[in-house]
C-alpha cells in the first residue's frame, strides 16, 4: 500500500502524493450537492455536500444513527435524496434504479445467496449482464484468485467460515468491476485478529483493482487504517473530512477529537500571548497553560484544549524545561500490555490521562497507585478548539 502510506507520511515527492482533494483541477467521481434525506419527521442527512474522488478509499465514520448508512444506501440507489442531488461522474444518478448503476455494494450481512455456490454467487451479477460464457468463467476465476477462494468455489455459503464469506461478498461485489464499491461495515462480523488482517487485504485489493471504495464503519481504528480520507459524521452532518492523520492530529471540534481516539479535554479561557500563541486560564490557583494555535481566539474567549494521552509525559520530578506541567497523583492505571494509561487526578479533581509505552517489565514500573507525579506537554502537543 505504498500509495496511501506515502500520502500520510509525505515521504515521497509532492507530485507523487495521492491527494486529488487538494487539487482544484481534479474532477470528483461522486458529488453530494446539498443533499437532505428525511424519513417522515426524522432528518437523517442534513444539507450535506461532499466530494469523493476516483481511486479513493473513503471512510464514513460515525456512531450508529449518524446517517452514514443512509449516505451509502443513497449511493447504491436504495434511497433517493429528499432534496439535493448526487452526481456520479458528473451525472445525476437520483433517477437511476440500483440495478442500472455502476455501483456495487458489499452488505453488512454479506447477503450471500444461500442456495447458490460460491462460484455462482460471484457469477450472479455477471450473468445479469449476459456476459459470454467464456469471459464470465474467466472473470469468476480471476475474482476467486484475487480473494484466495479457489478451493471453496463449489461450496455453499453455509459451508465456509465467516472470513471466507466476507471474501465471497467482496469478490461478488467486485466482479462487475464497478466504478464505485460500497462497503457497509465489511469487517463487523469478524473477530479482531482476522479483522486486522482483512483490513490490509482490503487495501491491497483496492489498490490492485483501482476501484473507488466507500466504506461505512463505526470503528475508528478501521477507518484510520484503511482510508485515504475519513469523514466523521454526527446527526446527519459532516463534522470533519480529512486524511486520518489530520483528523487525529488536528481535529476541528471537541466532538471529532473525542470520537477519534482517546483525548483529554481541558476547558478554559484563552488569552493571546504572542503570534499564534495563547495562555489558557483553566483552574483556580493553577498556572495558565500555553498552547499554540493557527486559529485566532479573542481575549477571554472560552476554549477547549485537547491533548492526546500519548503526548503527555509522566515523571516523578517536574521537568525543568517543560512549558506545561501540572502535579497530581496516580488515581488509576489501565494496563494494556504494550501500553499503560495513567489516570492522574489533579488537586482540583480533574483527571488527566497519560499514556506511556511499557518499555520495562511491569514489576519494574516507575509509578503505582497514589504516587505523586508530574504531567507535562509541549505547547504544540495540544490542539486549541473553540467548540
Amino acid at each position, binding site marked *: 500500500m505504498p500509495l496511501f502510506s506515502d500520502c500520510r507520511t509525505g515521504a515521497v515527492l509532492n507530485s507523487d502524493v495521492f491527494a486529488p482533494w487538494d487539487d482544484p483541477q481534479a474532477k470528483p467521481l461522486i458529488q453530494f450537492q446539498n443533499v437532505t434525506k428525511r424519513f417522515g419527521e426524522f432528518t437523517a442527512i442534513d444539507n450535506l455536500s461532499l466530494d469523493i474522488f476516483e481511486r479513493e478509499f473513503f471512510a464514513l465514520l460515525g456512531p450508529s444513527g449518524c446517517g452514514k448508512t443512509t449516505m451509502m444506501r443513497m449511493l447504491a440507489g*436504495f434511497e433517493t435524496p429528499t432534496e439535493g442531488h448526487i452526481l456520479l461522474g458528473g451525472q445525476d444518478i437520483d433517477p437511476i434504479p440500483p*440495478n442500472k448503476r455502476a455501483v456495487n*455494494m458489499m*452488505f453488512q450481512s454479506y447477503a450471500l*445467496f444461500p442456495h447458490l455456490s460460491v462460484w455462482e454467487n460471484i457469477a450472479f451479477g455477471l450473468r*445479469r449482464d449476459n456476459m459470454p460464457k467464456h469471459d464470465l468463467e474467466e472473470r469468476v476465476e480471476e475474482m476467486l484468485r484475487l480473494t484466495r477462494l479457489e478451493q471453496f468455489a463449489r461450496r455453499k455459503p453455509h459451508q465456509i467460515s465467516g472470513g471466507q464469506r466476507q471474501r465471497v461478498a467482496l469478490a461478488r461485489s467486485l466482479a462487475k468491476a464497478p466504478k464505485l464499491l460500497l462497503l457497509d461495515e465489511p469487517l463487523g462480523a469478524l473477530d479482531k485478529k482476522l479483522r486486522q488482517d482483512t483490513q490490509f487485504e482490503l487495501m491491497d485489493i483496492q489498490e490492485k483493482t483501482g476501484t473507488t471504495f466507500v466504506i461505512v464503519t463505526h470503528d475508528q481504528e478501521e477507518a484510520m487504517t484503511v482510508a485515504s480520507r475519513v469523514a466523521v459524521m454526527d446527526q446527519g452532518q459532516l463534522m470533519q473530512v480529512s486524511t486520518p492523520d489530520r483528523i487525529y492530529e488536528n481535529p476541528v471540534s471537541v466532538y471529532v477529537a473525542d470520537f477519534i481516539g482517546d483525548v483529554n479535554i481541558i476547558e478554559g479561557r484563552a488569552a493571546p500571548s504572542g503570534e499564534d500563541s495563547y495562555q489558557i486560564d483553566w483552574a483556580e490557583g493553577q498556572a495558565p497553560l500555553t498552547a499554540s494555535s493557527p486559529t485566532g481566539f479573542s481575549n477571554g474567549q472560552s476554549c477547549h484544549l485537547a491533548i492526546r494521552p500519548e503526548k503527555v509525559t509522566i515523571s516523578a520530578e517536574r521537568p525543568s524545561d517543560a512549558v506545561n506541567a501540572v502535579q497530581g497523583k496516580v488515581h488509576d492505571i489501565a494496563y494494556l500490555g504494550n501500553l499503560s494509561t495513567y489516570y492522574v487526578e489533579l488537586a482540583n479533581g480533574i483527571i488527566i490521562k497519560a499514556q506511556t509505552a511499557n518499555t520495562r517489565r511491569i514489576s519494574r514500573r516507575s509509578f503505582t497507585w497514589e504516587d505523586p507525579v508530574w504531567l507535562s506537554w509541549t505547547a504544540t502537543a495540544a490542539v486549541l478548539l473553540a467548540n
Partner: protein
Amino acid sequence: MRRAVLIAIPYVWLLALFLVPFFIVLKISLSDIALAIPPYSPTLDLSAGWAGIKEFFSQLDLENYVWLTEDDLYWKAYLSSVKIALISTFFTLLVGYPIAYGMARAPQEWRPTLMMLIILPFWTSFLIRVYAWMGILSNEGYLNQILLWTGIISTPLTILNTSTAVYIGIVYTYLPFMILPIYSALERMDGSLIEAAEDLGCSRFQAFWLVTIPLSKPGIIAGCFLVMIPVIGEFVIPSLLGGSGTLMIGKVLWEEFFSNRDWPVASAVAIVLLLILIIPIVLFQRNQQKQAEAEG
C-alpha cells in the same frame, strides 16, 4: 429406565393408534365378505387352538386386491383423485403464495393479526364451512345473486355439484396449509438478499424469480405436500360440493363401506390408498430432512 419410558411413549402411541388399526384393516382386506356380524370371515377362533389359527390363516387371500384391478372403477377413481389433488394443489399454490408473500412483507406489527386471520376459519367446524359454500355456490346462491344483480351474467351459473365446486372447496379449505409453510420460509429470508440481487443488476421481477422463489422452495414443497396428501383421500368436499361426475377414491371407499357393506373390498381400497400416499409422504419427509440439514 426413565429414558426408556420416555422413548416408549411415542412408540406405544404409534403402536396403539396406527399399527394395530392398520393390521386390523389389512386383515379385513384379506378376508371374504360374509352375511354376519362382523360382515367378513374368517374370524380368529382361539378356542380351537393351533389348528384354529392355521385354519384362520389359510382362509386369507388376495382376492379383493385382484378385484380392484378387474373393475376399472377403482383405478379410475385413484387416478381421478390424484389428478384432482394435483390440480387443486396447483391452484392452492397460486392463491396461497401471493398471500404468504404479502404477509411476510407486511409491517412487523401487522403480521400476528394477519396470521390470526389465516388461522381463524379453523375455529369453525370444517363441515359447516363446506355447507356454507353450498349456500354460496348453488344456483340461487349468493354468488349467482350478486353476478345477476350486477348484470355480469343473465342466467345463473351451475357451479355446485361440478368439479369446479370441488376445486373451490379444496382450495378454500387447504389454503392455510399452503400459506403457513411458505410464509415461514419467506419471513425468515433476509431482506438484504433482494437488495443484493438488485444491486447486482436484477430487476424486481428477476430478483423475485432468482432469489425469493428458490429460497421459499422448501416452504412451497412442504405446502404442496401438506395439501396434496390429504386431498387425495378427501371425502367430505367431493361428496357435498361435487356431483356424480366427480370421482374420488374417498367417496368410493365410503360407498363400498356403508352402501355396499363390503368391508373387505373397502379395506383393500384403503390399503392401496395408503400405499399410494406413502410415496409423497416419504418425499415430504426427505424434503424436511434436507431443509433441516441445510440450516444446520
